[in-house]
């Protein structure tokens, strides 16, 4: 069955989440991934939106993280402090992130290119990203894969990954055991080496070579002996995405 890159991205992201856990999600891809997970392998995945929507069925796709659809038929409609404090207490397993740049330690930049006070390009800023990246157990970044985005060193660490290497998060005072878990791109699925905390290629998308990944990454990746291939979206996944989750094709 034919599919577009966004559909594959959503499917790969969706497969990263375990059932009966919680995910802190923003609008866009993460929301579709969570909705798909709930309709496939993780029906009891709880979605948490940062302004207080908790446990929605995701029957309607939200357009804004504070929008009414984030708590339509939800189990709780609370507040930003409540949602963020739940994450600070260690209750939120997954957090989704994006950004303009990511480096080999999973640090993310969504603030500026160039000098902060005289920026070449000004981006939106942290939003909830810094909190999610600091407080959730496992963060999953969704990125377009190219050399401009996968950089040796981000211009600005909006959201901490493993900072400058093993132990650095803990040294900075961030909660132990947290950090970047997966990076899902239009080319591949990546993780982080347990010891070096370097970004590591886990699987390539159908038709993509390891060489292509290297070419599109400005830093050296850990490439394991065996690189998996991501399964394409299944017919059922595509049906769910197109007919139930985003029938208006807002995102896909």
């Amino acid at each position: 069955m034919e599919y577009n890159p966004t559909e594959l991205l959503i499917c790969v992201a969706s497969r990263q989440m375990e059932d009966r856990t919680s995910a802190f999600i923003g609008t866009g891809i993460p929301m579709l991934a969570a909705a798909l997970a709930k309709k496939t392998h993780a029906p009891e995945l709880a979605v948490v939106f940062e302004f207080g929507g908790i446990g929605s069925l995701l029957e309607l796709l939200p357009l804004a993280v504070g929008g009414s659809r984030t708590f339509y038929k939800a189990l709780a409609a609370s507040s930003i402090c409540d949602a963020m404090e739940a994450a600070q207490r260690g209750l939120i397993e997954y957090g989704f992130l994006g950004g303009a740049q990511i480096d080999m330690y999973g640090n993310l930049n969504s603030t500026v290119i160039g000098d902060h006070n005289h920026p070449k390009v000004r981006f939106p800023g942290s939003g909830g990203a810094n909190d999610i990246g600091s407080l959730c157990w496992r963060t999953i970044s969704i990125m377009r894969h190219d050399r401009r985005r996968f950089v040796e060193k981000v211009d600005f660490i909006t959201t901490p990954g493993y900072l400058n290497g093993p132990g650095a998060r803990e040294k900075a005072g961030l909660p132990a055991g947290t950090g970047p878990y997966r990076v899902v791109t239009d080319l591949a699925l990546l993780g982080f080496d347990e010891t070096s905390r370097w970004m590591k290629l886990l699987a390539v998308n159908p038709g993509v070579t390891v060489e292509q990944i290297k070419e599109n990454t400005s830093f050296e990746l850990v490439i394991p002996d065996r690189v998996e291939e991501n399964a394409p979206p299944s017919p059922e996944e595509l049906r769910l995405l197109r007919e139930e989750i985003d029938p208006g094709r807002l995102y896909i």
Partner: protein
Amino acid sequence: MKVLDTGRGELFLHPRPAADREWLRKNKSWALKDKVMDEKEAIDKFVHDGDYLGTELYGTVRCPMSLAREIIRRGKKNLRVAGQGIMEIEVLIAAGLVSKIDLTYLGYEVLGLSYVLRRAAQSGQLKVVEWSNAALAWRLKAAALGVPFLPVKSMLGSDTFNYSAAKVVECPFTGEKLCLLPATMLDVGLIHVHRCDVYGNAQIDGISGFAFELARASRRLIISTEEIISTDEIREYPDRTIIPYYLVDAVVEAPFGSHPGEMYYLYWRDEEHLKQYLEASREPHTTEEYLRKYVYGVKNNAEYLELIGGEEKLNYLRSLAKGR
């Protein structure tokens, strides 16, 4: 409990709980006074040039747009703002009224980035200090508690911290590193609610965002409301009062006050108008045109609602709202 690090960002407003206590005692009243007035009177009375201002909620949702438009018409200048709002903050920047911002996020999520922020930050017109979303909410919460700071586990290790005005200390109980967020007691806060009485006792349906905190972290507080209800109704459901009257200085009746944003259960956001605005905001002169037409070109919220399509448009937006 040593201070180990301090962000290099400017602290626009130093925590001052002792001064706030004196100010609030002198200026707030527990009198049951009718505070209903229009946008013009509320902004003239309670927003001043140079104020540190904050708005609630987020994005294009339950945002006090009719108040923001009035601030522009009244030409309040040199504002410093807590940037957790989106469109209502952006139009103030677009109108050249904001000099400094405690920023967390300014953008339109699925609709894209903010051209206005880009121009203002890249030109140096707007001074930016960085925070996370939770950090800004927690800074308001600290002020709402009446204390100078809250300790948290966000922001640590990042440039967001480095360009903030937070501090890192060692916890005297656990020895761990904590980020201390300075309290923000705003000069003036703006909140749009579903309903309140003439004294300002206000109810909000759905998520409460950070209305609870911001209401308690504002020296002066302007409430705009979709509807004014009787105090008897308030007294029947006192557990629904999220903002009690003694926090409130002005009550502005503003149906569709969040337009083009949405208002839970009442009306959906005006995608068409929003996209029109975002298109206009690409260039300074088209932004100016938009403001001329939709802000300066109308006298008040009623005229604005006529201009954007009148009853027909409003009914359409009502029809798109989802129930419970």
